[in-house]
């Protein structure tokens, strides 16, 4: 309206600082952790274990599979949903891929297509439960978390599957130029692609709109059910991609692989600044979140902290990130 822009609602300096922290604060956390570990490891162990090329690439490698899944999780959470089934889905897709490679002689590319196909099918199934059966995402994916894990155990007879196509393993694991692990390259491509889709395309805009206000988005004539189906399918596609990387890296498919992957993926996403209430998502934040989780694990290993504490720390980080998000929203929102 004319001349009645109420100044109090425009960003005040405090709000701007809060928004800046919410958006980029996580990057400072990453930097502080790197600096702290660089100083701590030589002084505690007499030698620099942390700040070496080999270890940093290891951190990136350990972040890569989670990052690929978490990019999909970012779309799902931005749309106001959640996917608790990604860990089971990764296990199932891995088993299906290994069986296809070992028993049906699909080539290495065929194996990759089976992995992403299985993941996408699982994602579509989640999407159908949510859009057709009108289940809440939490309940639908809690159920499929059990279903996909059960299928993985049934298909594999509960045993890990070994002895498949060597070329599949060589293509999707190991290192490439500058000793960079291949999963890191894939994770980087997925991150750039995810960022482009979320910020530059209609699909990304509607993902944000649905998470912001589903009813308003529907009233604007947008077929929200079709887009939600697409969002869960994308999550499944990326989880399938991660399953291919995991299967190649381990040279085997374990039906219990991917256990608690949902914890890491949700942690990376909310830590990065994507709001669990929907409508706001950041791929850069998610990637940084995945790196921080990997750093926590790596740092705790180097500092000889018992590995059982890792789950405790990751869980605490989710709770802290959501508390920070809620507090920030209370500060910034005018109402």
């Amino acid at each position: 309206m004319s001349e009645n822009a109420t100044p109090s609602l425009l960003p005040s300096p405090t709000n701007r600082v809060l928004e800046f922290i919410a958006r980029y604060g996580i990057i400072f956390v990453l930097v502080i952790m790197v600096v702290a570990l660089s100083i701590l490891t030589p002084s505690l162990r007499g030698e620099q274990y942390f700040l070496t090329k080999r270890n940093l690439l290891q951190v990136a490698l350990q972040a890569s599979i989670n990052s690929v899944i978490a990019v999909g999780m970012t779309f799902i959470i931005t749309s106001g949903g959640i996917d608790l089934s990604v860990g089971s889905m990764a296990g199932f897709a891995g088993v299906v891929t290994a069986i296809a490679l070992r028993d049906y002689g699909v080539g290495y590319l065929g194996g990759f297509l089976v992995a992403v196909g299985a993941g996408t099918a699982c994602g579509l199934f989640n999407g159908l439960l949510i859009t057709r059966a009108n289940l809440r995402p939490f309940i639908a994916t809690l159920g499929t978390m059990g279903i996909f894990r059960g299928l993985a155990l049934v298909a594999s007879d509960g045993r890990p599957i070994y002895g498949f196509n060597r070329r599949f393993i060589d293509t999707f694991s190991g290192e490439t130029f500058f000793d960079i692990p291949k999963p890191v390259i894939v994770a980087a491509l997925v991150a750039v692609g995810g960022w482009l889709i979320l910020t530059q395309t209609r699909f990304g805009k509607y993902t944000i709109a649905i998470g912001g206000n589903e009813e308003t988005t529907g009233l604007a004539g947008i077929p929200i059910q079709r887009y939600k189906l697409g969002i869960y399918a994308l999550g499944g596609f990326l989880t399938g991609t991660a399953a291919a990387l995991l299967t190649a890296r381990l040279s085997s498919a374990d039906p219990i692989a991917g256990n608690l992957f949902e914890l890491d993926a949700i942690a990376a996403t909310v830590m990065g600044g994507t709001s669990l209430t929907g409508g706001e998502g950041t791929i850069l934040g998610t990637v940084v979140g995945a790196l921080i989780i990997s750093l926590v694990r790596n740092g705790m290993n180097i500092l000889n902290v018992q590995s059982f504490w890792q789950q405790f720390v990751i869980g605490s980080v989710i709770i802290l990130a959501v508390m920070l998000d809620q507090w920030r929203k209370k500060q910034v929102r005018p109402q």
Partner: protein
Amino acid sequence: MVSVSENTPLLRVEDITKSFGAVQALRGITFDLVRGTVMALVGDNGAGKSTLAKILSGVHPPTSGQFYLNGQSCRFDRPAAALAAGIETVYQNLALIEELDVADNVYLGRETTRGGAIGRLFGILDRPAMRQHTAKALSQLHIKIPAPTLAVRKMSGGQRQAVAIGRALTWGRELFILDEPTAALGVDETEQVLRMIERLREEHGLTFIIISHNMQDVYRIADTIVVLRQGRHVATLAKNDTTPEEIVAYITGAKE
């Protein structure tokens, strides 16, 4: 082309009913709306005003009855059908996505893409063009906003309502349905929205249905007033032949 005679009303609503299970929300609504006029739809809470608005904008199909736009029967099965027919609705509290900026809201569901066929395939947004057109369209409507890139959540209630109405005016051709357009606004902002509606009717001959609780607003801007009570259509009044007291009497049931 269907020839539209001078006498054809823009909108004809014929005996529309709507039931949700055992609840009869609308029990036979009939009226004509003449092009270039403002109709107020009034009634107490639960009278059926919003249900009627949702039928006209394609959210719900009517249980029975018909409505016609320019003499043509309308059967909308989804909101997109009503939008395509030129009917724009500004919903109370549901008009805009707070997380998107002004231009993204104005173009919500109507995005333009860049990069030719590939851009269309992947839905690559042409944000510079959409922002430019939004700024131009809103300024033509005398709607002043700081920038088309401002997030809606940072805007005042009046600015939001202006953007929501501006969005409807950018795309609508036939009929504009405004659900409680001033309910959330202060005195100054209310005055500006009412003036905008008056100006659009007088200068551009636009047609409005306005749902309102505020008798002062209704009496000031409406040409005709349709009163609903408990789903029944109790009166159609011409403003010049009625008084605010009479309208209230129909709403409360003091007068049948």
